[in-house]
């Protein structure tokens, strides 16, 4: 039977993560470590120890900002940024959802806007995000300021062949 470590390594399709010798360069350079439940190098250790539920249920994987500082500096070329993507995807596929619900709500609102128009419609995405997250009132003054200044375009042009974009969404569907 495949271990959690095997699954993660297979999906990263690069250097096996057990090559990590915990120098903590990734954690030292991680701009999000200050809010993470588990530091990046600790996540690697937890995967090796088979702590699947804890890792996939953690806020760490959703707070990673994909800045790629970790992979840039890792002396062993462990692709931690890709590992975080893989862990997020595994969390979704396992039906676990996301501990950081607002982060996932943002991604869903973003992708649903692309699926509908081929391109992101920023104001529509924001409305959709607010409905999904329940966070209705934040940024109201800022939004109004942006709208008054003409920074938001409700009628931004769409992709004409939006069917080709929807086909991509259909054919790459995972969960």
């Amino acid at each position, binding site marked *: 039977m495949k271990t959690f470590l095997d699954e993660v390594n297979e*999906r990263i399709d690069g250097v096996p993560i057990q090559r990590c010798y915990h120098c903590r360069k990734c954690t030292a350079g991680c*701009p*999000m470590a*200050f*809010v993470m439940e588990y530091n990046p190098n600790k996540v690697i250790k937890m995967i090796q120890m088979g702590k699947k539920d804890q890792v996939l249920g953690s806020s760490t994987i959703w*707070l990673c*900002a*994909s*800045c*790629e*500082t970790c*992979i*840039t500096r890792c002396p062993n070329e462990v692709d931690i*940024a890709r590992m975080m*993507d893989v862990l*997020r*995807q595994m969390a*979704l596929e396992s039906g676990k959802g996301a501990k*950081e619900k*607002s*982060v*996932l709500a*943002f*991604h*869903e609102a*973003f*992708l649903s806007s*692309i699926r509908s128009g*081929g*391109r*992101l*419609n*920023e*104001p529509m995405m*924001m409305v959709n*995000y607010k409905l999904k*997250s329940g966070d209705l009132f*934040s*940024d109201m003054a*800022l939004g109004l300021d*942006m709208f008054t*200044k*003409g*920074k*938001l*375009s409700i009628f*931004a*042009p769409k*992709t*004409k*062949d*939006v069917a*080709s*974009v929807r*086909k*991509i*969404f259909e*054919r*790459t569907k*995972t969960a």
Partner: protein
Amino acid sequence: MKVSIYPGCSAHGTAKEYSQSIEAVSHALGIETQEIDDWSCCGATSAHSTNYKLSVALPARNLMIAQKKGLDVMIPCAACFNRFKSAQHHLEKDKALRAEMESIIGAKFTDGISIRNPIDIIANDIGFDALEKKVVKKLEGLKPVSYYGCLLLRPPEVCEFDDYENPVLLDKILTACGADVKKWSFKTDCCGGSLSISRTDIVAKMVNKLASMAKEAGANCIVTACPLCMGNLDMRAEASLKMPVFYFTELLALAMGLPGPEKWFKIHITDPMPLVQSLKLM
């Protein structure tokens, strides 16, 4: 020179001043741009966070359209640039993925065109001397720090651009325009990117740090080439730390005496006009 341009979704919305200034500056520097036919979104962070194949397929659709023209693609948005470079990297090294993507999208992937960002094109193809010759109003008194953020540079073997820990091309471009560029150690630190909306609290802490470090370096403004960095620095820093943030192309246009800056500066959230007027740059 002739390039295809991929404007990206923010070009019509929150980053319209970037998109309009890049067009103006390109035209003035003799870079002819042709928009990629019927382009679609690159998927950004949301696609690669949730679905690997989707994150390759969305930029790949645009890459395959661009490849028909055979021109290099200029991508002003750092986030789009990163997604395109990454997709191209995966498609070039993974033959099975390439075949799968061709079947999903219904088009062929061919090698041969480069994905480039405007800093690279202006620094390496136009050159600092040629740029300096176009400057009609030196940006005297402007003390910017250049802020690259993450997505133009990392990972370096994918982005293949500038020094990834201490990039210098943007500094040199601004120096050519007569600005007194300040040194600082936060050029490539993260602004929080797409967490801006979902975890505003965290992003605020990150941009406050950037803004206060810029101040400490003696800067009076921050210069960026990324709509996400711009949005976060312009909107999320606390009032006492806020300083004007510019797209580098807005400043190029100002230095080259092109029309537009007045209109663009009006849509910034942190008003840059007091600074620009006090330095008599406008």
